[in-house]
């Protein structure tokens, strides 16, 4: 069964750095797995924790969150704010028993096309090894008579 498992990975990326970086990966003709669905948001500061919860609930096996390096935010401090929230949220999710190893946070700049490819590769293989996030996905149908 695991042979046929193709991980579904959702990437929430900021418009200015990581999205541009991922674009560069493409224009540089660097190949990377197609398991990732990229969702572009204006800034990591916009990546509400509920987006992560919704991604898992809708069947993602893994999540990537990526934006501008510290000090590089297009809006000056969106990524700093985001970082604080992730620090709290990641602990909370772990405390609730949610598998935080399925969530990868990263900074990928517009110039780091290769880093993006490497990241997606690693995450895809990591999630492939972990298998589908069944225990969370089953929640969608649980508790209804």
């Amino acid at each position, binding site marked *: 069964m695991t042979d046929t498992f193709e991980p579904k990975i959702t990437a929430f990326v900021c418009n200015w750095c990581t999205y541009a970086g991922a674009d560069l990966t493409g224009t540089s003709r660097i190949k990377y797995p197609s398991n990732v669905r990229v969702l572009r948001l204006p800034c990591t500061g916009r990546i509400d*924790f*509920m987006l992560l*919860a919704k991604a898992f*609930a809708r069947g993602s096996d893994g999540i990537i969150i990526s934006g501008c390096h*510290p*000090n590089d935010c297009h809006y000056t*401090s969106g990524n*700093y*704010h985001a*970082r*604080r*929230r*992730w*620090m*709290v*949220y*990641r*602990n*909370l*999710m*772990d*405390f*609730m*028993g*949610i*598998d935080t190893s399925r969530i*990868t*946070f*990263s*900074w990928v700049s517009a110039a780091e096309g290769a880093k993006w490819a490497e*990241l997606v590769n690693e995450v895809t293989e990591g999630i492939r090894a972990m298998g589908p996030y069944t*225990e969370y996905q089953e*929640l*969608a149908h*649980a*508790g*209804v008579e």
Partner: protein
Amino acid sequence: MDLIEKAEQLLQSGDVKAVLGFEAGTGGTRRPAFARRPGQARRLVFDDACVQNLASYVTRKETRRLGKVAVAARPGALRALLQLMAERQIQEQDVLPLAVDAAGQVAELPTAQAIEEHLALEPGPVSARDRELLDRLGKLSRAERWAFWQGELGRCVKCYACRNSCPMCYCEHCTMDCNRPQWVPVPSHALGNLEYHMVRAMHLAGRCVQCGDCGRACPVGIPIHLLTFNAEETVHAQFGQRAGASAKLDYALSTFRPDDKETFIR
């Protein structure tokens, strides 16, 4: 002066329109009570069985309508009052907190500074029992924690007693009641419960005064206060501040330091 005398005096003088305290409840318990006339002050009691956080009343419109209230406050309520001031929901002059000492003597805490000074003498907010629960859960494997919380949250019926008893849940339009978009499912099925408690904890991160009233309010006994406690403990450990410590506290998650330290971003 004891609490009853103090309440009578305050009501008599008209300094406050109501004294919010505790009275005897069912089966030896204590419950919140509003003394609005001097004659009603006799009902008031204050002891270790008084557990509810009375600060949750001061932002309710039914209470605001009464006018200025005095609050016979336990430490959790005092922290909540400071946090409400920090969030600009109340002002010093809206409420008169009353602290009751072990001998039953009452002190007025008319300013934020007075509350802060009084609280400085109190022990930390997290009880030994809750500390132990947090530690015990922290030591479980992730899968065990998942099983624990799924078992617990499966009991949730979404009565919102946790939300409504929380002094910091004063929003007139709670995100749980908004449906455009419908972020969190309304029904109390598995996903609806998990997301609700996740949102509740996140919305209280940096704001939770760790009174534990949500856990006490739960009619099916879910220790949900541990979720907000966890979030608040992260805020304290990482950002060095605690909600309810000062009336001039910035919200931990609407600010940042360039050198905030994390270990997980690649």
